[in-house]
């Protein structure tokens, strides 16, 4: 039985303003979405040029979900974004050149060549680097929220999971503990309908994954993950509720993974019509139309934003390409932390 609330689509400019976004915020969201897609498109090119070792993952189709949630987070909030959530890194302010350096395993990437693809995060921006075991970072985010609760801080942790990883025990244990203790954490499930080649109906038996929230004692909401302002509104509501002691929320963002699981996968198993149908709901195109219809986005503004993003990414690629290879002599440095390593903002 469906118990989750189905969120309304995004509203008028006036409604959006009431939710805390002014016109400059709206344009910044557009920039962030374009940058997110641009980073991944250029990453794809780098991969085909043989400049990216290992594999390569993108979040095409998930730009609205990731940027929408990240826009709703406060400066002191923290999050554990995954490999479809490049928009979170971009929105929190990671320099794109460092992402390209990460992709290429260079010394200036956030992990200095020690880990690859989107296994990265700038902790100064309140993000924690993901691991491949999904959704292992979900209980970690619950632990961040536990720390906020113990210290009685008005901060919120955001935990991401895909719909595939929601089948794992980590999701259950993390959400159950958070529900029992009513911790300030928001769970975001990017439901892109495919866990590698496995479709939703072989992943879960409830109507909506957000229905599970009621089993953990908190609210669930289903939102169109291609509608950035609807995602923002629901994330904002959930984050502020958590901040004010209202406990967790599970937000299910419905999208379609518009490419294969990774670059090697042509997604032959996804019906072509499904791709065609969801291509009509491209998150960036949808938002661009909304901006033109509701916020008087002009041709000049559009061109200026596109040119700015293009130049930023071109410069970023060049800077990343100049970044040196990591030094094998330092391979085993930092396996163990020293007391000086605790000299971080978190540990003061």
């Amino acid at each position, binding site marked *: 039985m469906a118990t989750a609330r189905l969120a309304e689509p995004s509203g008028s400019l006036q409604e959006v303003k009431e939710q805390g976004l002014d016109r400059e915020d709206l344009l910044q969201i557009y920039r962030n979405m374009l940058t997110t897609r641009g980073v991944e498109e250029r990453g794809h090119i780098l991969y085909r040029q043989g400049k990216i070792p290992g594999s390569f993952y993108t979040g095409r189709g998930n730009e609205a979900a990731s940027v929408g949630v990240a826009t709703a987070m406060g400066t002191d909030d923290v999050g554990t974004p995954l490999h479809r959530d490049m928009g979170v890194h971009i929105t929190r302010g990671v320099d794109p050149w460092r992402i390209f350096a990460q992709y290429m395993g260079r010394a200036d990437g956030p992990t200095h060549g*020690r880990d690859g693809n989107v296994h*990265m995060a700038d902790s100064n921006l309140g993000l924690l*680097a993901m691991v491949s*075991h999904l959704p292992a970072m979900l209980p*970690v985010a619950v632990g961040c929220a536990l*720390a906020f609760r113990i210290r009685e801080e008005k901060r919120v942790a955001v935990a991401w999971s895909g719909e595939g990883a929601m089948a794992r025990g980590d999701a259950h244990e993390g959400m159950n503990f958070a529900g*029992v203790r009513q911790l300030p954490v928001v769970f975001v499930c990017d439901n892109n309908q495919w866990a590698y080649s496995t479709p939703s109906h072989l992943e879960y038996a409830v109507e909506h994954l957000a229905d599970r929230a009621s089993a953990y004692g908190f609210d669930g909401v289903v939102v169109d993950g291609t509608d950035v302002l609807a995602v923002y509104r629901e994330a904002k509501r959930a984050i502020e509720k958590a901040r004010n002691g209202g406990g967790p929320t599970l937000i299910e963002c419905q999208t379609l993974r518009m490419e294969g699981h990774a670059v090697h996968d042509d997604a032959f198993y996804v019906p072509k019509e499904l791709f065609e149908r969801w291509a009509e709901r491209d998150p960036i195109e949808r938002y661009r139309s909304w901006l033109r219809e509701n916020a008087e986005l002009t041709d000049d503004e559009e061109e200026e934003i596109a040119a700015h993003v293009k130049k930023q990414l071109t410069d970023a690629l060049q800077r990343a390409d100049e970044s040196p290879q990591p030094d094998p002599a330092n391979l085993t440095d930092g396996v*163990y932390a020293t007391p000086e390593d605790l000299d971080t903002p978190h540990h003061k």
Partner: protein
Amino acid sequence: MAEKTYLQAISDGLRQEMRRDKRVFVLGEDVGVYGGAFKVTLGFQEEFGAWRVIDTPLSETAIMGGATGAAIMGLRPVAEVQFADFVSCAWDHLVTVAAKQRWRAGTPVPIVLRLPSGGGFSGGPFHSQNPESSFAHIPGLKCVCPSTPEDAKGLIVAAIEDPNPVLFFEHKHLYRRIKGEVPDERYVTPIGKARIHQEGDDVSVITWGAMVYTAEEAAKQVDASVEIVDLRTVMPWDRQAVLDSVRKTSKVLVLHEDTRTGGFGGEIAATIAEEAFEDLDGPVKRIAAPDCPVPFSPVLEKAFIPQVDDVVRGLEELIRY
């Protein structure tokens, strides 16, 4: 200075750290109202409150993952796993997240995981294991295995102070059986420093945890001067202390309660062979549990856990060699 049990010493050290540093908190199953399965945190919730002594659901993944998140946010979690055996349910978080986070992402994870370990009282296959070698194998984790009350207190303090994930193996068979003088004040026993439990000239026993006492009993029954090196911590381990002892006695027996194949004794034996081959007057001898699960029946468990007689026989073989 007062005489304390091994269990009381751990409890005292933890309590002192919680009084001293408000970042330190305890979480685990039944640690609050009940005071922990073995009563190490008895009375803690009354003193520190329900948000510093947190009873969790039966969720080792959430305990370990939660501790990791809280540690990255600047707290100093001390998580209790009710029996060391159940650490398997938290393996992923320890090994995948906590152990690698500093190296790959630059974020230290200062966590202590308290693990009541070891057999000797018919706990059976799931309440008796000594899994330290599995974790000593994982770069980024530290493994501490105290044998005396004094070390138990000094090492729990060191573990809490350490900026890394530290697995604190507290041997259940020592909890109330072993007593010793423990300083009242705060002190730190360094991680990575062995202790010479007993000096000797003829043969060295390298061991840790409850086997220190097995070695001590065996040493009394042989006609030789036996040196007992208590490693105190298995990762990092004090290579220098081991090599110094081997060079002094020229004969060495490595003893542990864990099973033989892949047990940490193999690493010690290999290091001795590499570094001190010329100093040896006999083969490096290992005594460990046989390669099978820990049995339940007292008769079978006695056959499993290395006994004083086994160590006596091993020592005599080395002495005769």
